[in-house]
């Protein structure tokens, strides 16, 4: 099959960008979307052009490196799928495919389709952890975790940090990402000591970079791991509680 591509090209973070049009010929239906781009890139290099830059690594949907806006949908038309797991059989011969980078001021474009997602790392650094120094842990079975809590924590912990939630959100909000980590850690008994501090600090850092959630739910649809919208409610609830509890704890210092 043959597809027409409209791809965002941008030489650097401060360079102006624009769309370029390419034709990909002899695309096999078995190809993954990124393999199709690999092919276009090889042709670009051989013909003296510059290949299209995009982030990718594991190509099995777990590392979270890849992420393209494909025809106005984060990670493309197949739901519950990262870009690397999208296959060309989803498209038809002659289709025009518009490929854009994630758009968010929290994710500045680096080059072409690659963006800088280190704001996510900063959110985690603000409190997305349980402070336990190596070697100081008690026997793992000393703290029992109800199966339902462990399962719900795992549902939230499945987040791969790709940024599709922000990209898909009309508000550019990062509540699903932040809520997923808060929910994962706040549901577990091990995470209780830092629960309120964690929530307040992570949400405050999130606020600095991203937009405001208005509960449209597009994030959870775009999420390759189907992180549920409930994690946002969890975030909202714990944030408000934290406002009171943290004040109380501080007063007791």
């Amino acid at each position, binding site marked *: 099959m043959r597809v027409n591509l409209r791809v965002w090209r941008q030489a*650097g973070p401060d360079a102006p960008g624009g769309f370029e049009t390419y034709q990909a010929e002899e695309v096999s239906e078995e190809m993954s979307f990124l393999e199709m781009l690999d092919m276009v890139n090889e042709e670009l290099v051989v013909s003296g052009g510059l290949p299209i830059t995009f982030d990718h690594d*594991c190509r099995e949907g777990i590392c979270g*490196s890849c992420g393209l806006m494909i025809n106005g949908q984060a990670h493309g038309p197949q739901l519950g799928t990262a870009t690397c797991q999208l296959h060309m059989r989803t498209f038809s011969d002659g289709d025009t495919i518009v490929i854009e980078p994630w758009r968010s001021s929290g994710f500045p474009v680096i080059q072409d389709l690659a963006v800088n997602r280190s704001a996510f790392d900063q959110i985690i650094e603000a409190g997305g952890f349980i402070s336990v120094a190596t070697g100081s842990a008690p026997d793992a079975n000393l703290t029992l975790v109800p199966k339902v809590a462990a399962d719900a*924590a795992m549902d939230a912990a499945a987040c791969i940090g790709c940024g599709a939630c922000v990209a898909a959100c009309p508000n550019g909000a990062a509540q699903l990402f932040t809520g997923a980590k808060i929910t994962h850690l706040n549901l*577990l008994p091990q995470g209780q000591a830092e629960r309120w501090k964690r929530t307040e600090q992570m949400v405050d850092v999130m606020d600095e970079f991203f937009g405001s959630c208005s509960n449209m739910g597009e994030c959870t649809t775009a999420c390759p791991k189907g992180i549920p919208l409930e994690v946002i409610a969890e975030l909202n609830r714990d944030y408000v509680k934290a406002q009171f509890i943290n004040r109380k704890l501080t007063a007791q210092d």
Partner: protein
Amino acid sequence: MLESRIPAGPLADKWDNHKFSIDLVNPANKRKFEIIVVGTGLAGASAAATLGELGYKVKAFTFHDSPRRAHSISAQGGINAAKNYPNDGDSIFRLFYDTIKGGDYRSREANVYRLAQVSNEIIDQCAAQGVPFAREYGGQLANRSFGGAQVSRTFYARGQTGQQLLLGAYQALARQISLGKVEMHTRTEMLDVVVHEGKAVGIVTRNLLTGAIESHSAHAVVLATGGYGNVYYLSTNAMNSNVTAAWRAHRRGAFFANPCFTQIHPTCIPSSDEFQSKLTLMSESLRNDGRIWVPVKAGDDRPPGQIPEAERDYYLERKYPAFGNLVPRDVASRNAKIQIDREKGVGPLKNGVYLDFADAIGRLGRDTIAERYGNLFDIYHRITDENPYEVPMRIYPAVHYTMGGLWVDYNLMTNVPGLYALGEANFSDHGANRLGASALMQGLADGYFVLPYTIGDYLAESLGDPPLPIDNPAFVETRAEVENRIAHLMGINGSRTVDYFHRELGKIMWDQCGMARNQSGLEKALSEIPALKAEFYADVRVPGRADGLNQSLEKAGRVADFFELGELMCRDALHRSESAGGHFREESQTPEGEALRKDDEFSYVSAWEYSESDAILHKEELEFENVQLTQRSYK
């Protein structure tokens, strides 16, 4: 020359005695030491976090945009530990024994025993960090049996154990970053080690965004940069996994051990066309219920449903009645290759064998199969557009893990003082074959529990010495070499892409140094690789500029190092004329065609020293005092 520093005394006491006898760094002095950690996967992130907690000044480096992306994240199955929670007879000694035996007796007893010992602490540590391990209804940790083990010792978090363990280590690292104990350098690739007066004193890196070549000085350098399976081009490794850090260390004097020991995983989805960029692993657990077969007649083009039972060859069940479809990874892989070489391969490219669930669905019902493997079936369906509930899966082996790596002593230090290697980047614990659910265990053991103790022994000597200034000629020269290398690659301006050469190299490696190896093939590879490398340096085209983000340039540097590694792998495979674990030499097999070890000749670690001409072989003899060497049999 090779001093393995294995402590004296009984096996069970070695690690404790060693921890007591090595030098320590006083807590107040730790902040005076700077340590570089390259790579932030399981081993690197856990090491950087722990060293930061201890008070060292740590600089961590990753070429990814975030430490959370390392390929450890892809591990599915689980992590072993000798907890014996299910009370089924497991023990530290049994985990040690299984690992030594599974590695076909090509690893060190002392290292493997220590690995089994600290395995329990890993589970405690990870559970306390909030890793959402699977639980029983009572709230206790769940275990399962994995990879044919006789006991249930595998802890898991759905099919995403690697992800959850990596995120645990990443979060511990994030905490140290927020405390200012670890300085994190993302999108920064290490391109060389700086060695001064025989010791590792720093690294030279390229900032992948700006192209800036930078020098970083430290008292010690820790490499946790993963394995080199991508030398085969197609593997289950992530696209960016590479050997450059380890190879550059090798070129600076660190020995490379057992490079030919590679693990080929039998249940991957066969490639579908020439542009296939990577292979996807399907969990080994599928073989519990799937039956592997090929048509009896070579070149049979009928769809699987039209091939009658009598014309199917369930070759594993036929050859290995006792183990059947559950033979170890290497045996299953090799037999698939034999069938495909006989032109019995199936699928459009004739490059797979069937893994058929029809019997299991008939016996257990579709729902049970969906419950057990639904997720895997979905992945398969998504990738191949074939529904495995109705049509048999097609599978083929693919390169998955590399047991070889930088040679390290008991302290995980290479033979270059001050240079350490952790996780898949070293050679230490898996011998000639790695058992399932052991890679995660080793990475975290090295990073959380071994290196943080052993590194003090080396650092203590240099108390009071500041790190070498980066304007020292050692840094200046290394940096100039890196810059020249890049300028050279950029200047070739040939006509072929980097990927073209990588694919060609991969074909040679797969054909001659893959699942089965023989003398003439390896010799052929040893003549083809240098020729391809020469063509690469004459005709590769690296577009764009070096002073900014340039993914082609990144790949070019990595592929250039893969050529040299590929040659060394073939050389190692050629010299080791026995079969052991993942290394099958056709000349060394039993009359039934099974792998035949030669313990009297090859019971050693081959450690290769770099040389401009031919690599120089050093041998570390392996001594077995606690286990009896036996030949594996699955008949």
